[in-house]
């Protein structure tokens, strides 16, 4: 049908299908700022303004939009510098988002900006609650909404004509300029001062140590290097690239949890006009591999095939289709006839290793790793003894035992898994994909595709969130096989339903804790026994559960003599079931460990009438001590001893307890009551946590820096910024060494053809590992610059002092002598490239670390519990984190806020449940509820800086640790509120109601 749409003040005569959505038409016209996240109106990332109102364009037919004014992000601002053409610059809302650190992955940013515009056009002076309501239609999985909300308030001030100071000169500056500020005690967070615009509350409190140094760029809230393109909605993501002749892929998925494929008839599908290929297991080589994106050799079994004659979970792959359109591919799927032979379904991890259990992996190609044993459905096994737990238990006055459970939950990144592949002009296979691990993907795909590594090129554009879900070679083989089959470009994006039934998730676990403790609170022995459900495949099975022990069981070593010789035991069986496979999810096993450990510690403290904070700190690992697991386990590789160099945990507790008002609330009966609401109770809780920073002796990152004619630098890195801001902090480190502003560092990541190797974005490693590589490369470049500058200075005149390269400093785009003479970097660059002894000034370096310095944190939570319904509302989360030196407090605090928000879902609402046939309950973002902007608790981040000696700038990590403590802190706060222990998260209303009822009945008995 013929329609005319008015988009961004321009009329577009169009020929569309009646079923075309506005989303499809807008993206087809090149308005790539309109993103696709769920295709069902649940996530809001496809929002546009329709007559000034934010609507989800996936829910509007294109024809329906005729006669209305459509506005997309492309109609707002633009880069202020457009060459000879004067540009209008960014819209004030975009500018505010950019300045406030409101952009992480940027996938939802255009929709948030448009929602803000709609609000501010109606209401120029909104309250925070009104802003939250306006943003509530757009889900964000990265930020926790704090900074976007503040950005909208800042934008409102801009639009009212108020003069605003830069963020770095706002109220929090004093907090980062002093060593140890006095701690503000009280029930409420500090109020902002009255400076105009200073109320943009996005900066965390940063407590510096006496070892902290002041730098030009490192430690400053620099704007993200990718923020400009993301806030404009530029085509930066995988799905924003299209090719002529491109086919669309779809995957037929199993309706059964366990079955053998007896017969597949694809003849009808193949005969459908427009279908280019239909592939089944009969068409592909049979190569066993692991989808886990990890270093070589993969520390896990090879138990997966691109397509197999057996399906092992509801959602497992049965066939691939490539067709001229998504609709045709979908129709072709429906024409494939499959005859299944159903097999017994194994869903209970407790049953998996029983002799009568059905065997899930009986394929002869299965490749074992370590103790994996498919005949017993055992994907991995770990047993670690540190010291002698039996001796420790014998020395204890009390033995406290408990059983705990953690659920399967989803990463739920808003950009789905998406990939595009094609043959290039040199007959090399190019795969453009939203991945956290481009180099691992290339290496791991090679045997699966029958291509040598050198004939595969993987390009990673911007990523719309990953959280571990894209540390998986999950769909790249689908497009690659279909490109090989058809010779044509193939595009595949998973639907939101596929994300839920067929991608990866956090491993669910059942955990038994046994702890020996003396009357004075000294822990004498600590044992954890874990049963992990890895689902149908063993991707990350060993390493995720290994981390459960390695991090969570390392924190409490005991006091006194136990510090030097702790008694710790960790035992884990990781078993196959017919659930969808689990995998990597931010935190990587550690949140699963700290739920039982910190719930258990709380119980012990209360049973022994000990102060929960003092009890924890008494037994916690300290600086100078041996990481107890470092000599016992290292992700399936040889362990080597590691001494904890820095540990700011005590200061974390000191700052966190003050910020949340612990001393006024804990044990204060009056505070626990809610006036006029007899059925409500307040509670406060805490959890101490630690994580790791990279994998020692394994994780390696490379960096390459070259100098341009104007004194700017190209920084090429294999590191993958999945929205975290890692490109920015790496640029900051390079800029610091080279004495230039961040804008002079042009970051490119990543492309396996052009950027050095990097293990990818996982294990909280990028700032530390890749950052150190960047520093080393920058130091090489700086040295070349100094050498040439010294030569130029010494040619300036005989009467001037001779200088050596070592004496020169790089600052403000200049090389400066001790007596104050200077040469600009541009002059150095022109001289090097064009004038004399020409050379390309450049540096290439890589880094790996012998240690994995742990970040530490104290997580506090405040809740209100309805003791009649069991509903828990979390009112406040405060996290004090020792992440080493904070390179960028804005991006780092964004990590903490977003992480706490994901972790809050783990605490109270998120879980993936299956019926007795293995069918998922959660299949969309309505059923799998992600917290929205208007239902968030107050979030507060405090950084306690320590200076880690193994890194040139002293950094550790902040990316994963915010996932670890929220759930147990909330669990402990619920206990504080109503005296009930919930040992299986999430703490849902019915679960708590049943526990409260049991407690009541117990009292009555």
């Amino acid at each position, binding site marked *: *049908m013929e329609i005319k749409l008015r988009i961004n003040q321009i009329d577009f005569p169009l020929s569309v*299908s*009646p*079923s075309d*959505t506005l989303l499809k038409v807008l993206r087809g016209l090149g308005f790539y700022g309109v993103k696709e996240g769920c*295709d*069902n*109106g*649940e996530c*809001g990332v496809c*929002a546009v303004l*329709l007559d000034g*109102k*934010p*609507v*989800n364009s996936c*829910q*509007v*037919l294109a*024809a*329906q939009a*005729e006669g209305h004014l459509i506005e997309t992000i492309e109609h707002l601002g633009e880069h202020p510098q457009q060459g000879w053409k004067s540009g209008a610059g960014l819209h004030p809302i975009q500018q505010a988002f950019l300045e406030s650190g409101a952009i992480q992955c940027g996938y939802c940013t255009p929709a948030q900006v448009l*929602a803000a515009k709609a609000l501010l056009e109606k209401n120029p002076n909104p309250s925070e609650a009104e802003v939250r*309501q*306006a*943003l*509530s*239609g*757009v889900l964000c999985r990265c930020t926790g909404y704090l900074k976007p909300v503040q950005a909208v308030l800042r934008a409102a001030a801009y639009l009212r004509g108020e003069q605003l100071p830069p963020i770095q000169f706002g109220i929090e500056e004093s907090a980062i300029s002093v060593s140890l500020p006095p701690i503000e005690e009280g029930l409420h967070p500090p109020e902002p001062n009255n400076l105009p615009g200073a109320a943009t509350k996005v900066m965390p409190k940063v407590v510096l140590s006496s070892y902290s140094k002041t730098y030009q760029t490192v430690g400053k809230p620099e704007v993200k290097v990718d923020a400009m393109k993301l806030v404009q909605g530029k085509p930066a993501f995988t799905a924003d690239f299209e090719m002529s002749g491109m086919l669309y892929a779809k995957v037929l998925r199993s309706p059964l949890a366990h079955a053998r494929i007896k017969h597949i008839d694809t003849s009808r599908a193949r005969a459908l006009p427009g279908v280019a290929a239909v592939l089944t297991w009969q068409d592909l080589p049979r190569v066993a591999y692991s989808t886990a994106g990890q270093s070589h050799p993969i520390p896990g079994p090879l138990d997966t095939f691109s397509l197999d004659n057996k399906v092992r979970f509801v959602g497992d792959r049965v066939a691939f289709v490539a067709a001229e359109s998504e*609709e045709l591919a979908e129709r072709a799927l429906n024409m494939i006839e499959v005859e299944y032979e159903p097999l017994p379904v194994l869903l209970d991890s407790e049953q998996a290793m029983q002799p009568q259990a059905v065997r899930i992996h009986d394929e002869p190609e299965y490749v074992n790793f370590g103790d994996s044993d498919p005949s017993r459905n055992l994907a991995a096994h770990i047993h670690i003894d540190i010291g002698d737990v039996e001796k420790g238990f014998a020395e204890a006055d009390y033995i406290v035992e408990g059983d705990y459970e953690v659920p399967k939950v989803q990463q739920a990144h808003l950009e789905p898994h998406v990939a595009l592949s094609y043959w290039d002009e040199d007959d090399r296979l190019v795969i453009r994909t939203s991945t956290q691990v481009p180099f691992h993907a290339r290496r791991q795909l090679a045997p699966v595709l029958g291509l040598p590594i050198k004939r595969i090129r993987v390009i990673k554009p911007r990523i719309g969130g990953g959280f571990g879900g894209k540390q998986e070679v999950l769909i790249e083989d689908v497009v690659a096989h279909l490109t090989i089959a058809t010779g044509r470009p193939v595009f595949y994006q998973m639907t939101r339903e596929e994300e839920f039934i067929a991608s990866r998730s956090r491993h669910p676990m059942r955990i038994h804790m046994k702890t020996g403790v003396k009357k004075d609170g000294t822990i004498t022995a600590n044992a954890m026994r874990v049963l992990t459900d890895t689902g149908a495949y063993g991707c990350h099975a060993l390493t995720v559960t290994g981390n459960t022990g390695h991090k969570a069981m390392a924190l409490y070593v005991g006091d006194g003599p136990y510090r030097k010789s702790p008694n710790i035991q960790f035992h884990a069986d990781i078993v196959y079931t017919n659930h969808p496979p689990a995998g990597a999810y931010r935190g990587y096993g550690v949140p699963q460990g700290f739920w039982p450990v910190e719930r258990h510690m709380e119980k012990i403290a209360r049973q022994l009438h000990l102060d929960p904070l003092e009890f924890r700190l008494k037994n916690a690992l300290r600086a100078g001590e041996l990481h107890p697991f470092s000599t016992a386990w290292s992700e399936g590789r040889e362990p080597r001893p590691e001494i904890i160099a820095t540990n700011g945990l005590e200061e974390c507790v000191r700052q966190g307890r003050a910020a949340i008002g612990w001393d006024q609330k804990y044990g204060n009966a009056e505070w626990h009551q809610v006036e006029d609401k007899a059925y409500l109770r307040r509670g406060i809780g805490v959890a101490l946590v630690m994580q790791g920073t990279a994998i020692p002796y394994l994780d390696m990152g490379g960096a390459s820096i070259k100098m341009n004619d104007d004194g700017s630098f190209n920084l090429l890195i294999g590191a993958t910024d999945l929205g975290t801001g890692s490109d920015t902090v790496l640029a900051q480190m390079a800029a610091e060494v080279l004495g230039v502003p961040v804008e002079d560092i042009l970051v490119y990541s990543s492309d396996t053809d052009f950027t050095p190797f990097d293990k990818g974005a996982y294990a909280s490693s990028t700032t530390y590992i890749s950052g150190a590589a960047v520093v080393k490369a920058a130091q090489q470049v700086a040295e070349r610059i100094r050498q040439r500058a010294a030569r130029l200075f010494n040619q300036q005149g005989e009467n001037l002092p001779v200088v050596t390269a070592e004496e020169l400093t790089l600052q403000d785009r200049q090389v400066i002598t001790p007596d104050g003479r200077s040469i600009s970097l541009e002059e150095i660059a022109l001289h090097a490239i064009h004038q004399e002894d020409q050379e390309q000034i450049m540096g290439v370096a890589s880094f790996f670390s012998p240690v994995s310095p742990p970040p530490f944190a104290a997580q506090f939570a405040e809740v209100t519990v*309805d003791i*009649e*319904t*069991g*509903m828990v*509302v979390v009112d406040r989360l405060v996290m004090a984190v020792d992440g080493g030196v904070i390179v960028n407090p804005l991006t780092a605090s964004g990590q903490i806020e977003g992480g706490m928000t994901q972790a809050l879902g783990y605490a*109270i*609402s998120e879980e993936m*449940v299956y*019926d007795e046939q293995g069918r998922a*309950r959660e299949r969309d973002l*309505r*059923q799998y*509820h992600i*917290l*929205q902007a*208007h*239902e968030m608790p107050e979030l507060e981040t405090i950084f306690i800086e320590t200076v880690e000696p193994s890194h040139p700038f002293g950094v550790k990590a902040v990316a994963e640790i915010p996932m670890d403590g929220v759930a147990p802190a909330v669990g402990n706060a619920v206990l504080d509120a109503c005296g009930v222990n919930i040992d299986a998260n*999430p703490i*849902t*209303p*019915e679960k708590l*109601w*049943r526990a409260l009822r049991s407690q009541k009945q117990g009292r009555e008995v």
Partner: protein
Amino acid sequence: MIDEYYRPKTLTEALEILQKKAPAAKILAGGTSLRKWRGQNLAVVDLQGLGLDQIESRQTDIVLGAMVTLDQLARLATISNALRKAIELQATFNQRQLATIAGSLVAADGQSTLATAMLALNARFRLFPSQNELTYGEVLAFGNEAIMGQIITEVVIPTQVQLAFEYVGRTPADLPLVCVALARWNSGRIRLALGGWGKAPLLVLDGSGREAAPLAARSAYSQAGDEWASAAYRAEMAALLAKRCLDELDHSTV
């Protein structure tokens, strides 16, 4: 698959198109439930050009054009906070800009907070061409058969009624595990509706026996178990929330 799209200029024209047999024609209201039609060959009749987006006060009623959006309704100063809360839980902010009052009620399932509230309020549908009025309860009872061949033009809400709304979910904006809406007229008549479970909200009481409300609620949800919550929990919550609704209205000054 939507094969045909129509935007009629009159109700009569709309009705004629709706008579189409192949492909079957459906009314397109806001479009927020498009997904449920996937896989069907359809013609859609978009009612946006019929001026059905007006809101009027008529005597003791608020009369909402069928195409009034949930956002329009939520912004209406004259509605109660309880109804506003039910609307906000029904759909996200963006969805509320498109979702219409009639479309949301027709497409509602048991988890619909809006439908629960409207059932308690005894909202009425006015139909074209018959000009008949049907209560929402009647439509729920008889299914869409009750309005087959007709177009909802108005949704009528009584104003001389107090409404209380209570909810339990995993988070403050999650789908309800249980929600209860209780409307009370000056005459003492109360209507109690439950939501959170099943294919449609349930009317469990329409009369003057306020003491019976919690018991009726518990009884109505005594079998209301599914994969999200047990029947025992829902039954207890239904009773509890019904009591809270009554208490709230008792303490209300309106």
